[in-house]
């Protein structure tokens, strides 16, 4: 059981190739981190896995526990168990957080079945407590007027509520101060289990002090150029990405 990406090539709509053959397997129960400089294709990888329509997959495959993800629509992938925590979450004016998350949960139920409101709020509040979020948050419009930290916390709350099989966290650490980072990490760690895989996309090693990865990959120019254990992140912290210059693409 894994999220399996094989020789994935993807371009922008104008034909510019961003992913140039990515191969990666994230078995359930593991946390993988992808690091790399800006523009290496890390965020694109997470968007392509989620089904963003701004990219065209030209070859390769993405399967989730054997199911072909590339044949599914964005919302189908989410319902099937993929979760993307956005680097820049959208604002949705006039839609309260409580109603938004409820609509997402409702979308997972068979037609005609309704969410039990009392149980829903109880569950929501307990997860908000875990992330140290104020109760007023439920009535606020999704991400509107949120600070960077609040937005990221909101992404993690949604992840916890939707209980995905595989979670992709796109630069969830950016824009967070150290306190907010610890809270977000606590939320993510609470979700680690044998039934769930994680892909953390990050520019810095800092996040990995709080969410310990099983594997670390380095991405550059649309490919994974190095893979290793947690020690690779520490090495990168010391040496930076300069070594990539020596790894001229074939």
């Amino acid at each position, binding site marked *: 059981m894994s999220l399996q990406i094989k020789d994935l090539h993807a371009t922008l709509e104008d034909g510019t190739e961003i992913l140039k053959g990515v191969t990666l397997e994230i078995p359930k129960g593991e946390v993988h981190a992808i690091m790399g400089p800006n523009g290496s294709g890390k965020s694109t990888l997470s968007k392509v896995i*989620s*089904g*963003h*329509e*701004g990219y065209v997959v030209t070859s390769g495959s993405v399967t989730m526990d054997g199911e072909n993800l590339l044949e599914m*629509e*964005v*919302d189908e992938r*989410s*319902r099937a168990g993929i*979760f*993307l925590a*956005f680097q820049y*979450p*959208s*604002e*949705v*004016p*006039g*839609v309260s957080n409580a109603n*938004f998350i409820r*609509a*997402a949960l409702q*979308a*997972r139920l068979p037609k005609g079945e309704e969410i039990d409101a009392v149980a829903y709020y109880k569950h929501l509040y307990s997860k908000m407590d875990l992330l140290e979020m104020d109760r007023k948050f439920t009535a606020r*419009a999704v991400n509107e007027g949120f600070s960077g930290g609040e937005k990221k916390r909101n992404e993690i709350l*949604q992840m916890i509520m*939707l209980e995905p099989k595989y979670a992709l966290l796109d630069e969830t650490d950016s824009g967070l101060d150290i306190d907010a980072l610890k809270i977000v990490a606590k939320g993510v760690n609470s979700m680690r289990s044998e039934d769930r895989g994680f892909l953390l996309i990050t520019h810095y090693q800092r996040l990995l002090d709080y969410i310990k990865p099983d594997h670390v990959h380095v991405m550059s120019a649309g490919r994974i150029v190095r893979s290793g254990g947690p020690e690779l992140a520490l090495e990168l912290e010391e040496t930076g990405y300069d070594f990539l210059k020596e790894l001229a693409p074939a």
Partner: protein
Amino acid sequence: MSAVIEPTPDLSATFPAWFNERQKAARELYESTPTPKRGDEEWRFANIKQLDFSAYAPSGFDGDATDMIARSVGVEAPLAKLVFINDTLVLSESNVPTGLICLPLAEALVSHSELVEKHFMQQETRLGSAKFSALHAASVINGLFVFVPDKLEVEGTIEVHHWISGENTLVFPHTLIVTGRHSKVRVVDMFRSANDSDSGLAIAFNDLSAGPGSKLDYVAIQALNEKSRMVQINETSADRDASTTGFILNTGSTWARNESLTRLEGPGSRSDMLSVSIPYQDQEYDQRTFQHHVSEGAYSDLLYKNSLYDESKTVFSGLIFVDEGAHHTDAYQTCRNLLMSDTCEANSMPGLEINADQVKCSHGSTSSQISDEEIFYLRARGIDPVRARQLIARGFSVEVVERLNDEAVESLVLQFIDEKFAKIATGGA
């Protein structure tokens, strides 16, 4: 609450002389006033063809009202509830506090003649519909009259249900609300059709006069059937430190014209002019507004939002007018259009005329579509694209509704909004 089903006496024979004279004069004014025509500034972008009202005539009502009374559901536990079918009063329930005058207009004309005379249609209609305003004055036979004495703060909502029944029926709903010093009241008008097939026309007028330091909230819900048309003229005046809110929801009718004028007559007065319109198919809503700052130190804030589907069309024309000497005015005007199709048409003409100093004014209008990124965000949470677009469009409207600051009325308005979105989702079936 005591329910009194009234036999609807014809009170017109007992109307006071001043009213009969006003009606006669209004009839003459109606006949001498030209019908708006293409090229009139107040009717720019308007569909003049919609103004042929010749097929319509008042009809009265003497049928069985049971069904429409049963359908006249508004807020939970209204303070007073009036139901009119074709301007004929069929139900009047009231549980209002002592001192509050809340009566059918026909009755108030007899019992509180002087009070009604002092406030009845005192302002000149200047946003284009002078002719229809005159027709209304000449033809009105009933409606709601509310007078709130000084210092009486009325909690709860007075609601009026206006039904149009029968083919080519013309109605003249009227709402006159007067608030005394430091008083408070809230009124909701709902305009609906007895069935989906008969074409009706409503030429409605609401007159809101807010006394010093008072708070007057008015909500109009237009949910007529899609064969019907509506002209609604709103005149509001706000005295010193008074606060008024006027809200219009358009979900029904094939064509509706709203003209809303607020006069800020005293320092510290405040007016919130709000509207939500959700046209689809070939519906057209045409809205004209005027924020008239007569006094210095007053505040007005207008927010109109349209979500346009299919081939629908909206027109918004608004003017902030600051009189000479109306210094320290704060006036804002925003019209936002959410374009839900490639074939809808939103016309906006915001305007500003300032003749005073130290004034803070802004006006603006935007038209946009839901962005792909926004849709992607909702879809990435498992929400299907149709529902995602609906959630976003609903949220767009909710931002205005929330400014009503009353849970019961907000949920009533949202109920009408949700009914419309459900209709849009099923293609109008």
